[in-house]
């Protein structure tokens, strides 16, 4: 965490994510749909691993009931 190029930016983001995830839960949206992780741009395998793990969490949850119909869906 303390190695951020923008010094404290990730700490600030982390605090806000803490609040937002609880707000999502309060509004009835699964908070697992939100995730924040810190991966260096030099750590490609770690990034892939994180995303794959996230996908494994998201898939059982299915598409969001709030998903908007795009023009593509309508046509």
């Amino acid at each position, binding site marked *: *965490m303390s190695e951020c190029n923008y*010094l*404290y930016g990730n*700490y*600030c983001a*982390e*605090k*806000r994510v*803490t*609040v*937002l995830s*609880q*707000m*999502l*839960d*309060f*509004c*009835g*949206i*699964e908070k697992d749909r939100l995730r924040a992780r810190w991966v260096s741009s030099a750590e490609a395998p770690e990034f892939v691993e994180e995303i794959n793990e996230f996908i494994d969490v998201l898939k059982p949850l299915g598409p969001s*009931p*709030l998903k*908007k119909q795009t023009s593509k869906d309508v046509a």
Partner: protein
Amino acid sequence: MIDIVRQKISKLLSDGSVKGVVALAMANGHVAPCLFQKEDDLEPLCLGDTKKPGDARYPLNKVLITIARQYPEDVFGVLVRGCDERGLYVLYRLNQLEPDKVMTIGIACPQELAKACECKKPYPDELVAGEKTEGITQQGVQDMEDMDLSKRFSFWKNQFSKCVKCYGCRDICPMCFCRECSLECEDIISKGELPVDIPVFHLTRAMHMTDRCIDCGLCDETCPSGIPLRLLYKKTSKIMNAEFGFTSGINKNEQSPLNLMGPAPEK
């Protein structure tokens, strides 16, 4: 109570300690914000009591910001209730007003108003008139948390769908002072479409209120669709309190943990 307030304002104006006082006036049967500048001109002064005590409230701090931006060198007085004073503390913190350019005339809210507002602290720290009454315990957030996830989802979906995007909640909010508003940023909020983007519109505002909202309840009073916005911001306040031990507007010199550089402070 109003006589004491009138005397105080008259004194501040006559000895020249303030350039003007932002308070409420009764004109043509309506209550409106007013800048009083002459001590012999205080006849229309009122405390916003029409049918019930304090049932006409206005974000006077917001009026004060507009005036203070135009006349940054002058000192102004402002009529404050408990909520307004909390708001002033936040505005000092966010560098929107200078504490030494503001003189408060604090009035305590009667029990009836405190109850109607579900106010946790219905009196200002610096009290000029009125008796301190007890704060009210709030229940709404807990009730909502006790519902299960799908019930909460349908509740808020219904509520948010009612939004007509009038921006009244933002415009009345004494804590909203930005010149550019995220709610008008087309990358986040689509323009000219109803229903609003659920839950983006309301959660964007809620996230901006996390360390600001002083729980005055004006948003709830204003919303033409009756969306319980305040309940949403009460929850953000509760999270801030539980996670960071922070309550917006309670201590005059407290910094927000969200603005502190670095990790969250120890609980």
